């Protein structure tokens, strides 16, 4: 398999990538960069536990080959999210509301929630449900996760809202 060389920004840090083109982004993040926050559960893009943000869009990193990402790609994982104001608000709200149980889906949930609020700081309940529909959770029944996203949204300073 051909090796690709790229320069990305991962969580704000410049990373020189050298990896087989077909290597899954998830494996690259977890094994080469040690960013173990992104999880593998289904391995086929169904559950969202491996969700990361690539150029402002949430994607499932378990079915994304490294070779598909160009130079200059910006990647944000759960580890980078707490450096963002909205990211911190999301994390705090998940803790306060009780949206966390086993925790395995939570990094993906946090990433998807952040991606939603970064674009739409005042989402409707329907918009939250749709934004999280690609993230499976077996513990919570989603009610508190949806409530946490609402709480985080309510705390985003007015200036940030459209």
């Amino acid at each position, binding site marked *: 398999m051909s090796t690709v060389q790229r320069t990305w920004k991962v969580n704000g840090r410049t990373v020189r990538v050298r990896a087989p083109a077909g290597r899954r982004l998830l494996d690259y993040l977890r094994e080469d960069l040690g960013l173990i926050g992104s999880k593998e559960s289904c391995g086929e893009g*169904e559950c969202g536990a491996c969700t990361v943000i690539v150029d402002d869009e949430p994607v499932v990193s378990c079915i994304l080959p490294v070779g598909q990402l160009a130079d200059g790609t910006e990647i944000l994982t759960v580890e980078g999210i707490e450096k963002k104001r909205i990211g911190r608000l999301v994390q705090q709200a998940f*803790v306060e509301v009780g949206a966390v*149980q086993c925790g395995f889906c939570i990094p993906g949930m946090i990433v998807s929630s952040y991606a939603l609020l970064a674009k739409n700081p005042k989402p409707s309940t329907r918009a939250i449900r749709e934004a999280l529909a690609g993230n499976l959770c077996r513990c919570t029944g989603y009610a508190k996760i949806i409530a946490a996203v609402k709480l985080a949204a309510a705390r985003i300073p007015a200036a940030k809202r459209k």
Partner: protein
Amino acid sequence: MTKRTSKPVRWVGQGMPRVDADGKVRGTTRYVNDVDYKGVLHGVVVRSPVARGILKALVPDPAFDWSPIVLATAKDVPGENVVVMHDRTMPLVAEIGAEIRYRGEPVAVVAAKTPELAAEAARRIRVEVEELPPLLTLQEAIAIFKSAPEKLESMKSQDIVKGDVATGFAAADEIVEAEYWAGHQEQLYLENQGLVVFPQKDGSILAEGSIQCPYFPVHELNDCLKLPPEKIRVRQTPIGGAFGGKEEYPTMLIGYAALPALKSGKPVKIAYERNEDILYTTKRHPVWVRYKTGFKKDGTLTAIECDFILDGGGYLTISDVVMFRGILHCAVAYRCENVTIRGKVARTNSFPCGAFRGFGAPQAIWGIESHIDAIAARLGRAPHEYRRQIHARPGDVTPTGQVLSKENGSTACLELALKRSDFAKKLKLSSRGRLRKGQRKLYGVGLAFFAHGSAFTGDGEAKFKAKGRVELTRLDGGKPVVDIRVSSTEMGQGVHTIFTQIAADALSLDPAHVRFPMADTGLAPNSGPTVASRTTMVVGNVVHRAAQDLKRQIEAFASLRFFKGAPAELRDSQLAAKGAKPVPFAKVAQALLAEIGPASGFFQFQLPPEIRWDQTTFKGDSYPGYSWSANVAEVEIDPLTCEIEVKRVTAVIDVGRVINPVLATGQVEGGLTQALGYAIMEKIGTGKNGLYDAARLQTYIIPTALDVPEYDVKFVEYPYSFAPPGGKGLGELPMDGLAPAIANAVEAATGRRLRQIPITPESIFAALHAPQGGTP
């Protein structure tokens, strides 16, 4: 400064945030696959390609380089080739010449430096089996049972008898009889099964991983690994969901990994990918349940006769106890003088079924709650009015002869659920098969009412005597800390948080002083498995009492050391005595640790002596306590596509004292959502060659954020006073009743009773287009 007379701070009853939430939201919590285990070999299980047959040979491909591979077969089992669960029939890996009983039964384990190489090696072993005709489904087993009951191969049978059903049927004005079916259900924890076995120099093993019940393997692998309990040490890593799926199964997984580990002397990790995890781990037991009920014109039940048959799969494992819990829930919630329940575990050639939240009770409650609605319909009574009449309440006698105590909130649950859901009014709006004015979809509302027995069945807790410690010790930096040492595992349900609350209250300490390290059989006494809705009630009481024991020791020390013998009290994190200036807990603890060393409070659980149970006759007090609930489901069904949507669910619940209302509500919402999947989405079977037919998340569908209804969860508290702080079982109850509530709502919406779950658009379509008359 607060007055001496003010009440101490209380943590029980507060919605304290989870103690483990921070790492989980930041992605720093390390599950087993997040740990870099240096030098481990990766194990892959080699499996039978057929569901039944005689294992003739394992033929490694001579063209493959086997030098870097560890291959372990039945010949490498150090002791007797048996995993001792509830019988001694199941081998760890199949022997040459022995019968294969299910598709995927392990025949060997290979291990190599990479998972890829191990998987390749596994593929290079030809497994030769002389095929025999398999019995693959419960449907086939029930067909045998109906034609000739004695020909059904039952791995365990048990009856419950109260009064005389013949007399009851003779006294009845009417009889309703019906059958109900439910299929397999996959636990679908988000984190797949995974663990590592480290062989130790002294011949013992250490296993760690995603393990719900660390003491199970300690006592179930002794014979096959030829190791005494003290030479099998097991500890949990953070568990990404379990729901019973990591209860008994990891025992087998430890056994599989131990074979190449002991053979090579190297640690071996086995971590399943999703596909393998769905195909080759346990599921909820499929059930066939037949109710025949006699009743008078006024509704009084005169007889309940019930056959309850589970599909156990190829081996018994723990299915007998699943069946026991099932039959104990078949008729426990209603008044009836004459009851006969016959439970069986059918042997089939499917993967052995195992523990899954509810453990037989959801299957039983699915049947009875559908059936009670059918009786109400025959009587021309509203389902809620009928349940008001016949539901069990304090003073009533259960089918095993147990008198329900006052600590049962059955009536309160039923009444409050009816009120909060506005059930009576909504029932009148139900479509009954025809769109009413203004309705674009068929609308229906349904009710289920049920109990769930807390803790081990019968005198299980009396015999087991759960043990636990609460220790005062030092962190590495010298800071004193109180450690909870019990074997209960944190798997998302929140035990680390609620036990911290319980210990903090019992000690009157700030929770910041309390830690709950991960369960480890090398460090914590056996407080039992984290199962059976027993943890809060039983082990919570052990933690409470052990913490009180430690508190007395700290107070005695403080009295002598700081207060010249005056009685001291630990209260709100400081030690106080009359007329003296209080001393902070940390200071007293430092002194105690320096002068005496670590202190430890201990407790061993005992049941009240009046609890009596006869395991052979199934008579007596079947559970120490009962939790109760009523669920109301509202559904909408598209009349054209038959697509079903559950819009709103009301759940009122008595689990005794609620330790943490935020966590408890989350448990309920999550359990209800699993029940929602069980009711209308999650479909998986073994019709084709014994292999599960939905092996991935593209085909096994669980609820998403778009599928969940609006939940209204409310607790009513009838605490279990014998075991402070008084919690009863919560974990399983939310899984029990929503499926029949939804089926009853579907009946209200369509006018048709569906007697098999999952209820899919296809099955609704078939029912709507079937000739009328199928509904009793």
